[in-house]
């Protein structure tokens, strides 16, 4: 459904993605794992059109999007939950969520709004609150709600667990699974290997802007390199 093919990205003269190819199938949960600064966010931004690749192809259901602006993505069924929620801080929760449906007709948006509130009842009591004043966990729910308002078939999530309490990590995790069960594919990134791969169908390991490993979630968790470097286990214990 979503494909990145040999995507290269530069910030100024610095090359940060090197021939990155990835794929997300319909209904899949796919994780991108990698250390700080490895380019995880940049992959998602390139997919979403927030950062133009210097070369390569971004394809959604066969349509090439790499040269198109980000604004066409929500209409095509792709949306993103950015790193650190990135809500509109001085707007109400309701305004934030409704803006997620900016490209859609009001009647359709209303319908999705009801669906989203049913899915995330936790935000109901806060609809009139100022978004920036909510806790990190609540903000993450609002950010997910805003992302879902585009009625996406693929949802990109940049470090959805960042800064959340362990209990909240669990909640967000089950929300992601719930969303996925409704047929939404998810491509997310996360620095913690266990968290990334345990909950995903497939995963990619990104290092210094290059995909160095990919496979099913289980295979990734079992891979000696992942176990040694990212899970802190010794070879013989494996």
């Amino acid at each position, binding site marked *: 459904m979503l494909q990145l093919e040999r995507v290269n990205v530069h910030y*100024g003269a610095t090359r940060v993605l090197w021939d990155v190819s990835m794929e997300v199938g319909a209904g899949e949960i796919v994780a991108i794992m990698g250390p700080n600064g490895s380019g995880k966010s940049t992959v998602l931004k390139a997919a979403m059109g927030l950062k133009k690749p210097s070369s390569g192809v971004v394809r959604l259901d066969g349509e090439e999007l790499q040269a198109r602006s980000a*604004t066409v993505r929500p209409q095509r069924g792709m949306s993103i939950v950015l790193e650190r929620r990135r809500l509109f*801080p001085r707007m109400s929760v309701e305004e934030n969520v409704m803006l997620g449906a900016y490209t859609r007709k009001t009647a359709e948006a209303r319908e999705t709004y009801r669906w989203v509130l049913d899915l995330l009842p936790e935000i109901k009591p806060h609809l009139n609150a100022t978004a920036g004043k909510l806790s990190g966990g609540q903000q993450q729910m609002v950010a997910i709600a805003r992302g879902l308002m585009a009625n996406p078939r693929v949802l990109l999530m940049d470090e959805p667990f960042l800064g959340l309490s362990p209990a909240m990590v669990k909640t967000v995790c089950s929300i992601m699974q719930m969303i996925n069960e409704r047929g939404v594919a998810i491509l997310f990134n996360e620095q913690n290997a266990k968290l990334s791969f345990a909950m995903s169908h497939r995963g990619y390991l990104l290092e210094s802007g290059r995909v160095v490993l990919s496979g099913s979630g289980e295979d990734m968790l079992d891979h000696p390199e992942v176990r040694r470097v990212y899970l802190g286990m010794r070879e013989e214990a494996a």
Partner: protein
Amino acid sequence: MSSTQFIELVLNGLITGSIYALVGSGIALVYGTTRVLNFAHGELMMLAGYGVLLFSVTLGWPVLLAALATILLVMLLGAIIQRVTIAPLMKREDWAFNVVAVTIGLSIFLQSAAQLIWGEQFQGVPYFFSGVAVIGDVRMPWQRIAILLVALAVMGLCALVLFRTRLGRIIRATAQDAEAALAVGIPSGLVHTAVFSISAALAGTGAILLSPLVTVSPWMGASYLLKGFAVVILGGLGSFGGAVAAGFLLGLIESFSVSFVSSEWSNVVAFVFLIAVIWVRPEGLFAGRGA
């Protein structure tokens, strides 16, 4: 100080302040939404000044029509200037300094162009309103009162657009997080252009209201630019409401300082106040409000 004197000072302060508020709120709106400090903002005023001259004096159109035509003209010019000179630069990673340089260049260019086209002789526009309003013992020409009333109406309209319309909502969203706005499908590039246009309309309104009282010249915007920046800093960088409040405050301070020190010192008093505020409250007096 007699009460008549007091009312006169307040009224004068509010009138001067309403021009500062018009100029400053436009700069604040652009800065708050696009993070561009527009040094050519004063020249949008100047262009509006020449617009009034053209439509009302040269072509002899009725005042209201000339004013509307002028506003539309500067809105269009503002949009073109933003599209042609600023928008292309903002696509680059290192735009912040370049854009400042470009707006300074624009300012100089527009002043020189005006000088070449219209020459150095200063021109005046006749009063739009005749007569003197009498409030108690205070006598004030309607022309001056109109400045306050029209400025309030125009800024009120602008606030209504910002806080009560769909356009306003996408402007505020872009101001609060341009990338997140883009991600939900808001064409933030176009929003930037629209905001420039609205800001030009605010500057244009100021220039139109001033045009019968000052002379229209290539440099008429320059002094107001400085006051506009002061207002933006006082109001809390980028806050529309803060800039409006700070504009009136600065007008009142200047007005009262004139009654204690001579008028040449009013600028000094205003900027000493500004520096004091920067020391005590670097985030501005009214930070945290507005768009």
